[in-house]
């Protein structure tokens, strides 16, 4: 009844003794997530909240606790190394919350992960949550979620909470909510998550939240048209944003018109999605789709 995280999730937090790391590790635990280990180099042997063992390295932590998901809170200059360390320990899922990771580092890490067994979510993402399994691996407010059958995938952080808030408010629960992050280069894509929701027997409908810029929504649309058999409601925000000031043409040449909200909405509509007209209509559109 979920994807990526569930009752089997054994969570490790990299950077567990930092300000953000400790705050959110505690919140994840409070939500019900099975937090089995923390990693902070030099603090191996200590414990977190009196009961979660802290290790010097991810490989030690994984060996000792069987951790299978790592949530990463290390500062931007060290984020790439932290992801590589999780990959080296063959952790199946690494979730990098860190904002401000250099694009070059993200590209290097993603190239390195090709053909490796580790999936990266993020960087610069809110993480993911499966309310039905009480598995929260991220920084989202747990209380707004409710177990159910709608899969949510989004490039955004707080806008995902908005979407979830509207869904829960209308009594529409979620199977898993995944924030893929907004950085130009990131790990898991819309397409990856859509494919998993499509194959998840307990997800009956999908809500996708996109933004202007890039071509990720078009790739999602192409995948939906070709493969997704479940109803998808999609929102694109930034419809009314004025074109930003910019220098040079390279970005525009790469994405062409695809970066525009109108182009993304057209592509999603043609792919058979219900296009959510305004950000206020996320819940209602999803509810109507399920009815």
């Amino acid at each position, binding site marked *: 009844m979920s994807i990526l995280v569930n009752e089997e999730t054994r969570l490790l937090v990299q950077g567990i003794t930092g300000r953000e790391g400790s705050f959110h590790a505690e919140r994840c635990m409070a939500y019900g997530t099975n937090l089995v280990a923390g990693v902070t180099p030099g603090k191996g042997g200590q414990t977190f909240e009196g009961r979660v063992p802290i290790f010097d390295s991810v490989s030690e932590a994984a060996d000792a606790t069987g951790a299978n998901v790592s949530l990463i809170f290390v500062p931007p200059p060290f984020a790439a190394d932290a992801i590589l360390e999780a990959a080296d320990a063959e952790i199946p899922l690494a979730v990098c919350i860190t904002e401000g990771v*250099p694009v070059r580092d993200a590209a290097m890490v993603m190239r390195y992960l090709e053909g490796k067994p580790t999936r990266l979510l993020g960087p610069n993402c809110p993480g993911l949550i499966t309310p039905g399994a009480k598995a929260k691996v991220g920084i989202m407010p747990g209380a707004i979620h409710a177990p159910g059958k709608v899969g949510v995938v989004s490039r955004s952080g707080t806008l995902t909470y908005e979407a979830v808030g509207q869904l829960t408010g209308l009594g529409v629960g979620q199977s898993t909510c995944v924030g893929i992050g907004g950085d130009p280069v990131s790990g898991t894509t819309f397409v990856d998550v859509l494919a998993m929701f499509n194959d998840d027997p307990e997800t009956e409908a999908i809500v996708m939240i996109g933004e202007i810029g890039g071509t990720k929504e078009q790739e999602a649309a192409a995948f939906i048209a070709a493969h997704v058999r479940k109803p998808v409601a999609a929102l694109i925000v930034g419809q009314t944003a004025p074109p930003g000031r*910019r220098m*040079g043409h390279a970005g525009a*040449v790469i994405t062409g018109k695809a970066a525009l909200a109108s182009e993304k909405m057209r592509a999603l509509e043609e792919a058979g999605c219900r296009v959510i007209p305004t*950000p206020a209509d996320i819940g209602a559109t999803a509810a109507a789709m399920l009815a």
Partner: protein
Amino acid sequence: MKLHEYQAKELLAAYGAPVPENYVASSGAEAADAARKLGGEAVVKAQVHAGGRGKAGGVKVAASPEEAAQIAESLIGSTLVTLQTGPAGAPVHKVLVERTMEIERELYLSVATDGSRRRPVVIASASGGMEIEEVAQTEPEKVLTEPVDPVIGFRAFQGRRLAARLGLPAAQTRPFSALVEACCRAYDEKDATMIEINPLVLTAGGELLALDAKISLDDDALFRHPAEAGLRDASQDDPLEAQAAEAGIAYVKLDGDIGCMVNGAGLAMATMDIVQFAGAKPANFLDVGGGAGEEKISRAILLMLSDPNVEKALVNIFGGILRCDVAARGVVDAYGKADRRPPLVARMLGTNADEGKEVLARSGLNARMADTLQEAAAAIKE
């Protein structure tokens, strides 16, 4: 972070990319000296963080050192408005004085990161000059791309392939390949997000030269490039945006009258959309970012209010890392300090939402609370 043309050319030259002989000048006298070194005739180019300078009168040919001085004096201190600067324009503090040449062909060359491919790509076209975006739309087959592997870099065979597809003469295959490699190394080692050479010219003498050069660097990577971080020219940015950036706040000034303060870029865009759909006009985009504290919220509000066009304010906070009560205290603090207090519509959800609403209610501010986006939009429109 954007570099000026002269900084970009210096950086590229350090990597071995050929650029025309040039000198930076901050005065007419310096420009005349430079022109003299170049043999009298020279091109004088205004240094601003934007393209489209030629059409805007920012690039002129001087036939003599005296004329170079004249042009430089007319440009330095002026504000140049190009298609890429927006109506406010950008101030000119320096000019680049560069040798003239006989141009045989103009090409387009750039490196930028393609999010879909998750790696840099080299983009090249035999159709150089200003209209590359139009070429990309209308004749995409004329725009060539070569993805650059993030770990092994741009390879010689790609340079050869690109040179052949651009129809470069055989003698230029190696120089061209070396130039692209130099750009890719600079892009990688300096954490660039864009390098653009437009035009890349083939001179009548058979020489390849970067006639113009634009470079943007990744702000998130400046911590490992202290020298380049020092190249920032804040005068080229909107002063409010520059202030905001310093405080870690994403702020873009717009021309409406509804000041918006939101946490998260996606929700901020959604908020702007909602405002516009309700028939009102946002005065700005403002994302206070993740994990803001009371002080940062307060600064964001003051920043928003410093725009005299703001007649109403909309605060939309979905508490996650940021607690709503903290946000509310920041808002109250800012309204206490501000010299004017436009009516406020506030929406607070998520972590400590009730506490946040309570803080606002007890503050005595003229704050209207909204629970949903619809309500917020309706309230702002009233």
